[in-house]
């Protein structure tokens, strides 16, 4: 069964595009990454899935239920961490978490205490006194408290220190091992790389690609750095497959996708002093997608 499925999902805010004709499938039990630059449509997609906004056309389903018609039942099974966390003034952490628990008819505070301890969260503090990072911890506990089948995280590590980030990854892996599906949205690709098995790349409101993380990294995209013994005209490197070209007098850096032979042939004609070809980071792979289609 698909945990999430969007079918030609389109959302416009007046004349402004949120997402357009988005077809996405997330299998139950997956840890699925959702990456794209700011304004690409990540939060619009998520907010449609959790029922905050309504699709302009198309549909979204969670565990085979329509997010508009059966939103209440769906939300019972979702744990959602928003990118920006705001809570009610004058409430203490424990009061808010217990308030949230009651919406799920959940009894007892064993789970609450366990999560709070794991994330080093003080339950007695007033929420308005908390730092951004600590508010994020409250939101994480609140998202995981009711043992959701689907955990949707929008920029979850923003504001968390590295130690807590590591604990969060551990916690999410544990939840996934217990059967929870995790939908992890981020613009920091190294985070996605660390946790996810598959990733969807969204740009300008449309789906650019869905890839296995390994396959994405193995794509024939290389980071090339060449130093030359004499100045060279940059258009000599205008080959198919070359993107993000940066040059100065005797040096060129770029991303390259495609067969290596034509590139090496061209470089051989250019008096190369030093050449490095590296595996690109996921950020660079992503930039390749983004820039290549612009």
């Amino acid at each position: 069964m698909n945990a999430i499925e969007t079918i030609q999902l389109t959302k416009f805010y007046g004349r402004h595009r949120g997402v357009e004709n988005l077809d996405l499938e997330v299998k139950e039990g997956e840890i699925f990454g959702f990456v794209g630059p700011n304004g690409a449509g990540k939060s619009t997609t998520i907010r449609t899935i959790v029922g905050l906004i309504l699709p302009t056309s198309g549909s979204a389903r969670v565990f085979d239920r329509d997010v508009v018609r059966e939103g209440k039942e769906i939300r019972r099974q979702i744990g959602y961490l928003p990118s920006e966390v705001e809570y009610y003034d004058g409430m203490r952490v424990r009061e808010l978490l217990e308030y949230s628990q009651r919406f799920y008819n959940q009894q007892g505070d064993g789970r609450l205490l366990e999560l709070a301890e794991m994330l080093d969260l003080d339950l007695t503090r007033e929420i308005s006194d908390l730092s951004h990072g600590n508010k994020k911890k409250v939101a994480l506990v609140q998202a995981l408290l009711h043992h959701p089948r689907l955990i949707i995280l929008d920029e979850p590590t923003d504001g968390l220190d590295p130690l807590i980030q590591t604990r969060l990854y551990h916690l999410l892996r544990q939840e996934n091992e217990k059967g929870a599906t995790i939908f992890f949205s981020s613009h920091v690709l190294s985070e996605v790389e660390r946790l996810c098995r598959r990733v969807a790349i969204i740009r300008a409101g449309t789906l650019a690609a869905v890839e296995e993380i390994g396959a994405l990294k193995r794509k024939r995209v290389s980071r090339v750095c060449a130093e030359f013994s004499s100045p060279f005209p940059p258009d000599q490197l205008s080959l198919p497959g070359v993107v993000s070209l940066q040059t100065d007098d005797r040096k060129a850096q770029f991303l390259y996708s495609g067969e290596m032979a034509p590139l090496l042939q061209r470089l051989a004609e250019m008096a190369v002093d030093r050449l490095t070809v590296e595996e690109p980071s996921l950020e660079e792979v992503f930039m390749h997608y983004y820039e290549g289609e612009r």
Partner: protein
Amino acid sequence: MNKNLFWKELKRNRTRFLIWAAMLSAFILVTVAMVPNMAATLKLQAILDVLPKEISLAFGIDPANWTNPLGVYVTYHVFYALLFAAIFSVSLGIELLSKEEGRRTAEFLLTRPLGRNEIVGSKTGVLVVYVVALNAVMTLVALAGFAAFVPGPIDIAAFFVLSVYTLLLNLAIAALGLFVSLLVKRGRATMSIGVGLVLGSYFLDAFAKAAPKVEALGWLSPFRFVDIGVSQAGYGFQWWRILYFLGFIAVFLALTFFRYRKKDILI
């Protein structure tokens, strides 16, 4: 209706209610304490002699009402129980839904397992409780004041009728506030719009009374449907006034439920 949300909202708005209830109770008590003195010395007649007739009519100062202490009190009731309480009602009505978006807590509330109707239903429940409670407090304080300060009998039946009309007006204004808050974009000054609506409606009725050529325009205002002529013979409930308020409340609540179901919650 969701009990968890209802009780939390009730608690969250308790301080605002207590402040308004205390303020209006104090006004009413002071006014009722002054009524015997004003009625006895006919100071009101002196005021009427000074004020132009149109202004007197506009502000509900009607000498026909001054034949008894209740009639004198009504001159002030128009300001406290109608105008000020309507401002409380519209402001609470506007804030209950819109503050979730304005303070960005909607992302928490609307991602709980709640239907949109449950949210509007629970918030409407809180609104009704506080509007009814404020009206009950005003009525009880006035009755206590009459007992303490006004010698002689008070027409309790007429005061009861007036209090019911006042409650209906406040509920209608509260329902209007709920609906209006859904039409205004996040971040806009919803409170100013609400208070403007109440004052606009009040003065539309007031000035229409003073200008015979546009007198009919006053019927566009809910304030026109409150009968304040407590001293007139046969004063009592009139079915068309009651029906107007019930219809007004039903229409704006229905519009609120309908609109909220279709509303994008923008954070």
